[in-house]
């Protein structure tokens, strides 16, 4: 695809501003009615989905050229997809999020990448991770665990920790708990250890298309060699990469988020949660597990017009509206924990507010990332919850850092941490 392929999506924008709000039916208060961190933080129309479509059209028509402001417009956005969900309430034939991503691809391929991202992408090329860690230390998080190393052995399930869990020492205990929990429940599971590679999803979201393909090839080859049938990950971004993006390259292994896997095991009685956890928590839906975590549906088709002027696709193009993301499994796990109370925020499921960490914002615009997280924490605090729980290490890192700066009281957990408390 090229940006030109999205020209009709750009001209189709009716400039209605739905993209700036959560689905209007769901608005419960003025305070938490907004959906898009980018326009809320940056202000100008160009920093919304509608604005970006008009900027893309302007680029296509040669009305504007490249400059620093354009790069900010293109990259000062988490690509969290909330705009796309709201837009598709009425305009589900517009591929807004895809068009925004295509703009990133175009700028990168035209040699106009964002300078702040360069070191991370270089590190991906050299060390195969997105967190500036050395490749040699990738497997250290699992030191001392009695778990199969699939670089040398075989197993039906691979546990892919992802870059954040692999290198973030404060969070690593969650990954250790998860893989141990699955192993103890009788799952034939292993890890790739030092040979685990970045999923490539973050790079792709930043505008580096080829990097995703390289990562996908590398990971798929290694997993197939190890006899893997199912990929389990505790990271929402990795989940999205495997579940949606890899599929486009022909990848066919089953992909399961760890909360889905644990939910299955709880329902089968293989994990028993017996200890009381007297906490009130609120659950933050990670964008890449929720609205962006819908299964990929293979499709190829052509545009035609019916009833004179209605452009449609034949065969029918799959809809990605956020309806089929992973929302229930993490909540189901939480509801299985004795004594735990779940207090929902106003913006949940397909219209959840972002944690701030996605799309390269954390790396390039840290103040914006922190502001976005602070907004979410403010929303969490209105529920009366003692803790905010998520299912993605990027969200958790974002919240932990912001709570520290704020000197806040709210605790930050992963669903797995709470499961461990209840064992």
């Amino acid at each position, binding site marked *: 695809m090229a940006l030109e392929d999205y020209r009709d999506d750009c001209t189709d924008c009716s400039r209605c501003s739905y993209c700036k709000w959560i*689905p209007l039916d769901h*608005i419960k208060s*003025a305070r938490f009615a907004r959906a898009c961190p980018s326009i809320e933080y940056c202000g100008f129309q160009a920093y919304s989905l509608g*604005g970006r*479509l008009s900027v893309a059209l*302007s680029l296509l028509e040669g009305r504007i050229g490249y400059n620093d402001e354009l790069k900010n417009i293109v990259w000062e956005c988490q690509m969290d997809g909330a705009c796309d969900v709201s837009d598709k309430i009425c305009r589900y034939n517009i591929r807004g999020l895809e068009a925004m991503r295509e703009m990133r691809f175009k700028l990168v391929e035209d040699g106009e990448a964002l300078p702040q991202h360069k070191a991370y992408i270089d590190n991906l090329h050299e060390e195969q991770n997105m967190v500036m860690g050395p490749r040699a230390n990738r497997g250290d998080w699992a030191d001392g665990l009695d778990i199969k190393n699939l670089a040398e052995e075989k197993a039906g399930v691979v546990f892919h920790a992802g870059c954040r869990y692999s290198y973030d020492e404060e969070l690593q205990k969650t990954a250790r708990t998860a893989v141990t929990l699955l192993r103890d429940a009788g799952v034939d599971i292993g890890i790739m250890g030092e040979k685990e590679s970045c999923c490539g999803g973050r790079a792709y979201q930043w505008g580096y298309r080829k990097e995703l393909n390289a990562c996908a090839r590398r990971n798929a080859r290694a997993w197939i060699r190890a006899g893997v049938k199912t990929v389990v990950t505790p990271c929402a971004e990795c989940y999205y990469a495997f579940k949606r993006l890899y599929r486009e390259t022909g990848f066919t292994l089953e992909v399961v988020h760890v909360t889905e896997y644990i939910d299955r095991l709880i329902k089968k009685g293989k994990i028993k949660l017996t200890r009381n956890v007297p906490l009130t928590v609120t659950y933050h839906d990670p964008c890449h597990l929720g609205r962006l975590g819908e299964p990929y549906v293979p499709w190829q088709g052509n545009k035609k017009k019916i*009833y*004179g002027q*209605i452009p449609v696709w034949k065969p029918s193009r799959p809809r990605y509206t956020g309806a089929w993301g992973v929302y229930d499994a993490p909540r189901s796990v939480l509801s299985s924990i004795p004594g735990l109370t779940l207090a929902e925020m106003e913006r949940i499921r397909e219209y959840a507010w972002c944690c701030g960490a996605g799309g390269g914002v954390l790396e390039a615009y840290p103040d914006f990332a922190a502001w976005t997280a602070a907004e979410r924490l403010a929303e969490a605090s209105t529920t009366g919850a003692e803790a905010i729980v998520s299912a993605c290490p990027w969200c958790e890192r974002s919240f932990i850092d912001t709570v520290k700066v704020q000197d806040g009281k709210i605790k930050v957990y992963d669903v797995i941490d709470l499961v461990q408390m209840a064992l």
Partner: protein
Amino acid sequence: MALSTDAYRALEDIVGPKYISQDPAVMDSYAYQWLAETVRPDQSKFMPRPEAALLPGSTREVQAIVKICNKYKVKFKAYSSGWYFYGAPFSEGVIQLDMRRLDRVLEIDEKNMFAVVEPYVNGGVLQAETMKRGLNCTVSGAGASSSTLVGATCYHGSGGTSIYTGELRENLLGAEWVMPNGQILRTGSLGSGCGWFCAEGPGPSMRGIVRGALGARGGLGVYTKCAVKLSAWPGPAEYPIEGTVPAYRSPMPPNFRAYTVAFKDWDSLFESYYRLYDNEICYYAHRQWTMLGANLGPAFWMLYQDPTKSLDDIEEFTRKREVKQLTKEMRYSYQLVLVGMSQRDIEYKEKVLEQILKETGGWKVKKWLETEMEQFSLLYLLRLGKKNLNFVYTGGWVGNYMQSGTPDFVKKYEPLAEETTGKFQATGLLVDCGADSMMGCVGSIAGGGQCGLEQFGFYDVADKKSTAAAIKWMKYCIKEEAKHNIPPGKEGMYLAVGKTHEELQRDLARQPAIHTWQRKIKQAFDPNNLGDRLYPTLDER
């Protein structure tokens, strides 16, 4: 005229560097507008690019900006949600004020039933806040994403509940207006320091003056706050939502009813309007589902309920027997929501409706009585959070006719609307969804008595031939209306945006004297002519 460095610096000093931009990409995001393609050279989607865009954060800043504009003779244009090409600059040399930082619901006075809002508060937000207090506001027909203040001060702001909650222009109370000369005028009771409760005083009553004939739409100063009247809401404090995206639903409270009622012909339908006015039973009364065409709309509404389906599947739906039956059954139909202030009240209203239907030969459409359809209707109609489905076919439409008046008056232009539309749909250049794609209020003002129908013509914005056909259709409708002694509807307003000054003057000269009066008003309030032609004036001869 390019903005001088001195003027830019003066503006930057007011809002700070973060809230002003002249970057070309940022400017094009303001220039881009729906409908631009119907009036701009080469069907461009871009209106003239603003010289700068500013995000003022207070009335004081707005006033300071306007004063600088007067000093440097710079034209300015404010918008809130920014939907419609009316919000964009109409010429070069204009600065754009994006009001999105003025976004507070400042007050909800429960006892006196009004709310005070800033420009970026939309209908969805205000309704959510008022519902918590047992009150409701008018969500304008443009939908929940549209600004309440704009509907009240700059346009008409009628919507589906207008028959009960009033049109927004009716509901305007006190307002704060930064006049084009940079002075602030507080209108109605606010002007005497008596609070927001009344538009007419004690204090300057300015409703007619500031709005003019059609609403100044950003052409005459900037409104920074206003109060709007609220109405009773005997429903939940927030909508409980069921279902998944996109066809969210809300369970029906016991004192609510949502119906699609249908009739055997137009005469019976319009007769029922009169009876609804006489009996005052409606909370919501609007012809909504037909906006997607009487022939194709029912298929769309059915497929929309299934989250696995999309517009790509609409042909399949039209072939379903159930859809064919529904299309026939609701050919002459509209939507109603009845709300009882008590259980006895809803029972009474229900009985009255039954009697009206009996007397006019109408019926409740069965499909829309199914629980999920009823729940979908309720939420859709009262929140109007999915109103922009009128863009779903092609990304573009124009709404012709739309003359408000008595049902007898509207009945007069209905056949013409169908005839002219059918003719253009038959060319294949507009969506052939049925010549009746008419939508409009059953009662566009409080209590009813006045209604309207807006005939949608859907054109593909990505297709130059289709866009050209929409323009031709608008012009054709105006000619046909003239032949039948019907004034031009919204199509006249759309096309006016693209007219030359001379063409506009020729049109205005044929109209009532109001545009002469508007010239005098404009001369008084906008001596440097910094607004635009959306406050139209007839030149002095």
